[in-house]
């Protein structure tokens, strides 16, 4: 909210620099977001009277004027056509500087000397545009320094008023707080009115008991047609409020000054009728002052005259009963409406007005009468108006009774943690308008919405005394921390493994486009864009989007991972699952001039498989695999993985495998299908994995137990098996595992190849068996016996041949 420094100075003496003032405001909780200097560049503008206007001999559109500044005459050529002899206008004399640093020098216009310039409001930096030269009031003396006369220089402070400080949403309110901060007296609002008896009594009925706490109406007659005084115009413009006409300008002026919204009705629309505050009729329409038509419903409160809505209460006045140029008699409304319904009305109508934003944060019920009187004072002072006593003076029962808080000095001292004397507490509170009596504090009317419990008093004491004196104490109490959450521990272990192995960690949004969402369980009702409108079930869409972004920018050989959440709906309740997911493209080691190194693929099925085994070893699990054919839908569901149908087509057939630990499905990996990647405009091969950390965190890791190892040499025997491609190696592995002799310590593959010589349906796998005895050196014949027996059983079991 904008505040004019000149205006603030009307109520509180400010003798410090603007920077110091800003600092004081910030430290009192009034953050200054911007400092706007108005008219500070202006120089040498005086008021002048037009003595004569003659035609320019060589230009149809120019005239030659003679201007008097009281002592000297200036000849000035101008293109203005709204001036006449006798007008008083602002004159920039040579050496003057106008808005945006525009300098005025003596010059010639089409051969005629011109010593200065007649100014419009725009040239003085007051308005964006104007119609010709600014014709001033005839009363204004000639030859005065117009810049200070018209308060053209001002400093505007844009202050962010906190939601609980509705009382500071006005010049007077902020000045009141500032007077405490600066420890200087607050000047009073000037109110001196000659009151006349109310000429007519108006009835008022309040049908909005949950809305309207106070309503006053005053009749003000015989307001003479008046130009709004320059200073008032300046203050309004400085605070960002346009000037309309004298009557309306005064209501706005008093609103900005006191924070109490006012509304002026043309009295002819009110005279003789009943006034009421009531709920609108359903579908009732009203045309507002902004010329827009609002459709109302029964949640809206209106001010009705003779039953017809003439204003949306607290929000905007109606066009029909509004003040016109010709209006001389008005009905001035000052009221107190509650913030909650105003807030809702603002949202309903998409409208925030100077009035509604003040009601929204809560206004001072005691300010109603004061603001009405202040406006009356100004109508009388400037336009000789006849001011009547209140025609309507409604106050809901119980409203305005003083509110008090029970407190103890010890509690406040303890909460702050600083030894304060009672004086240290009393002084700031008293200055702020609180009254202290027998362990109770009476809250000033402008703070009742905000101060409801005693810690508020501690807050005020801190705010005024400052935080600097508060000591810094570390809370020494030791709270025994819970065991490190297993989920976090696993996440850290996995992240560290991934990072050590070349993966870049990414962080993405959990909201994705419906185009890439497999399901739409959880949808955002008010997304910023539909691209971010569905809660993701897993991280894959985001990883691929990030891959696409990088690949399009020549960032190849990607290895990316994220530990993040996926969301789903289970029994109509949102559920989140922590996943670690990653993708690889290109070469494992990226570009390398070492040819052997460059050849190793990163997007390869077996590279990823190996990575995952190692990763699980790192975190203490033995990773096993489950083929797509063997996996059951319930297992996948339990692991928060997509069911096969929903995700069909995502992987290349045959290059997709589920991961298990202790027979429990914990994730999946594979090579993504190029058709599927078309959605992302990715043409590189992409390998992908997904691990469910939530599930893994529930699995036990056994503490390793030592097993003695043999001190005797081992013996190796090889066998080359010719295996039909339809037979998966893991079947052989499992058979060996269950049928192996006691001396077989280790089995590994030393060779895999395909060749026409063994038939295109076959594959050759070279297996090495390592035999070892724990107690003695094995003799060849014992090894041979064991190896031959195992080989024979193996070949027979699967009907294989060896080479």
């Amino acid at each position, binding site marked *: 909210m904008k505040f004019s420094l000149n205006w603030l100075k009307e109520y509180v003496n400010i003798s410090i620099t603007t920077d110091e003032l800003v600092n004081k405001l910030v430290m009192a909780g009034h953050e200054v977001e911007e400092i706007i200097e108005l008219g500070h560049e202006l120089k040498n503008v005086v008021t002048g009277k037009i003595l004569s206007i003659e035609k320019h001999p060589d230009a149809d559109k120019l005239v030659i004027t003679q201007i008097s500044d009281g002592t000297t005459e200036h000849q000035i050529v101008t293109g203005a056509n709204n001036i006449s002899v006798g007008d008083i206008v602002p004159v920039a004399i040579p050496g003057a500087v106008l808005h945006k640093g525009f300098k005025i020098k003596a010059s010639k216009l089409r051969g005629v000397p011109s010593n200065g310039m007649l100014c419009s409001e725009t040239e003085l930096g007051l308005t964006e545009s104007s119609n010709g030269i600014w014709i001033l009031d005839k009363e204004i003396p000639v030859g005065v320094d117009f810049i200070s006369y018209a308060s053209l220089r001002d400093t505007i402070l844009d202050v962010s008023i906190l939601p609980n400080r509705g009382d500071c949403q006005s010049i007077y309110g902020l000045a009141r707080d500032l007077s405490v901060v600066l420890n200087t007296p607050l000047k009073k609002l000037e109110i001196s009115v000659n009151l006349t008896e109310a000429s007519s009594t108006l009835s008022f009925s309040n049908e909005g008991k949950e809305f309207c706490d106070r309503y006053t109406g005053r009749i003000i007659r015989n307001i003479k047609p008046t130009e709004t005084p320059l200073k008032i115009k300046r203050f309004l413009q400085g605070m960002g409020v346009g000037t309309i006409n004298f009557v309306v300008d005064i209501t706005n002026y008093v609103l900005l000054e006191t924070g109490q919204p006012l509304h002026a009705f043309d009295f002819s629309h009110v005279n003789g009728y009943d006034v009421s505050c009531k709920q609108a009729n359903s579908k009732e329409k009203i045309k507002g002052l902004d010329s827009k038509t609002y459709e109302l419903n029964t949640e809206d409160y209106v001010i009705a005259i003779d039953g017809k809505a003439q204003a949306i209460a607290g929000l905007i006045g109606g066009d029909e009963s509004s003040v016109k140029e010709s209006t001389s008699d008005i009905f001035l409304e000052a009221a107190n409406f509650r913030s909650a319904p105003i807030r809702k009305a603002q949202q309903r109508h998409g409208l925030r007005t100077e009035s509604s934003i003040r009601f929204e944060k809560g206004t001072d019920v005691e300010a109603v009468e004061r603001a009405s009187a202040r406006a009356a004072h100004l109508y009388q002072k400037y336009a000789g108006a006849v001011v009547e006593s209140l025609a309507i003076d409604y106050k809901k029962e119980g409203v305005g009774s003083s509110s008090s808080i029970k407190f103890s000095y010890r509690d406040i001292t303890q909460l702050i943690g600083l030894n304060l004397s009672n004086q240290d507490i009393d002084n700031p509170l008293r200055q702020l308008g609180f009254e202290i009596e027998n362990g109770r504090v009476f809250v000033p009317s402008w703070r009742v919405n905000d101060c409801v419990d005693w810690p508020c008093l501690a807050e005020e004491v801190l705010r005024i005394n400052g935080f600097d004196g508060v000591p810094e104490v570390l809370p020494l109490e030791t709270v025994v921390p819970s065991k490190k959450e297993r989920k976090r521990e696993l996440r850290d272990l996995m992240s560290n493994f991934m990072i050590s192995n*070349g993966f870049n960690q990414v962080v993405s949004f959990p909201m994705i486009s419906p185009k890439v969402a497999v399901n739409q369980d959880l949808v955002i009702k008010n997304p910023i864009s539909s691209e971010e409108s569905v809660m993701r079930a897993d991280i894959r869409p985001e990883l691929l989007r990030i891959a696409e972004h990088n690949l399009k920018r020549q960032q190849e050989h990607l290895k990316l991972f994220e530990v993040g959440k996926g969301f789903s709906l289970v029994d109509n309740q949102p559920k989140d699952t922590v996943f670690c997911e990653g993708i690889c493209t290109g070469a494992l080691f990226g570009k390398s001039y070492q040819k052997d190194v460059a050849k190793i693929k990163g997007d390869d099925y077996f590279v990823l498989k190996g990575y995952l085994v190692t990763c699980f070893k790192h975190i203490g699990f033995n990773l096993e695999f489950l083929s797509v054919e063997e996996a059951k839908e319930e297992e996948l569901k339990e692991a928060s993985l997509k069911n096969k149908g929903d995700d069909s087509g995502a992987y290349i057939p045959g290059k997709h495998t589920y991961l298990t630990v202790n027979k429990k499905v914990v994730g999946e990996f594979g090579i993504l299908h190029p058709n599927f990647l078309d959605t992302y405009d990715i043409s590189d091969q992409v390998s992908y994995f997904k691990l469910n950390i939530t599930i893994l965190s529930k699995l036990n890791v056994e503490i390793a137990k030592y097993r003695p190892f043999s001190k005797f040499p081992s013996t190796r025997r090889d066998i080359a098996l010719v295996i039909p491609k339809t037979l998966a190696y893991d079947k052989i592995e499992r058979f060996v595992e269950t049928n192996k002799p006691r001396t077989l310590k280790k089995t590994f593959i030393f060779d895999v190849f395909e060749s026409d010589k063994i038939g295109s349906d076959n594959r050759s796998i070279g297996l090495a068996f390592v035999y070892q005895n724990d107690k003695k050196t094995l003799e060849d014949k014992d090894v041979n016996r064991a190896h031959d027996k195992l080989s024979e059983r193996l070949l027979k079991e699967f009907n294989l041949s060896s080479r």
Partner: protein
Amino acid sequence: MKTQLESIQKISHDSILGAKTSIDLDLIKSKTLGKNSDFNGLMKLLSTIPKEERPEMGKLINAVKKELEAQINEKQKDLLKSERESSLANQTIDSSLPGIEFPIGTKHPIIQTIERITEILGRIGFDTKEGTEIETDFYNFEALNIKEDHPARDMHDTFYLNTDHVLRTHTSPAQIHEMETNSPPIKIIVPGQVFRCDSDVTHSPVFHQIEGLYVNKKVSFAELKGTLSFFINELFGSTPIRFRPSYFPFTEPSSEIDVQCVMCQGKGCNVCSHTGWLEILGAGMVNREVFKSVGYNPDEVQGFAFGVGVERIAMLMHGINDIRLFYENDRRFLEQF
């Protein structure tokens, strides 16, 4: 015979010394001491000399043989050494070529910042907990004293879900969950993603916060000040900080904490909007209404809470000027941290 031996010794000695390669030497060895060597011939002649001379002569021959063998071994060592040297000298590399780049990844700067913060606060006993992103209105607002018509709701541009849930607008709901499930003393921090429907250079619809909560029988603002001063000092070094009054519905008194702008050292620049200060924390004493909403007696417990904006701190520490860079995840960005 003795003369013969001496002559053989002389010739052999010369040829051993004259050997150029280890292969040459092998040939010389077999020529000198092998089956068909003159030396071996001499051995065979030993039986032809008088019986009494035999032992002496035998000794002599053996001594010469040993000597020659030693000479050969010595020479062989020298030759192998120099051959290895010259072979290594031929296998030259340009040692200035770069080494193989082993893949090493990077930790996202947001995660690094969270870890840095949780580590610092962990040292003074704050236990890290997890919260949930999807919350009900009760946890996100009501229980935190942000009632339905509270103007503070305007400060939270809330995303609503199709299920009567909201995406949490701050990490503060974690306070409520913690207090509902545990009794004081409580000393926790909760990092996590939060959501606001608001987006520009300095605002992202998704960002990270770290919530802190300390609840005990008696807790003072001085302890809040001590905790946050310690935290900021550890994070930024001894940078000036200031506490200024603010407002949050769930704390009273409330404060915002600024650090002196790290970009301009307080002189004023674009980053700090020419104020010389940067806001990095919101904090305050837990509002008594919040205690009531979790069933605590506000006359028996007190506490403080604070919220840290992670992105803001990461941006300051790394000199990042656009919050969107964090979520674009361009590798050229990620690799810098």
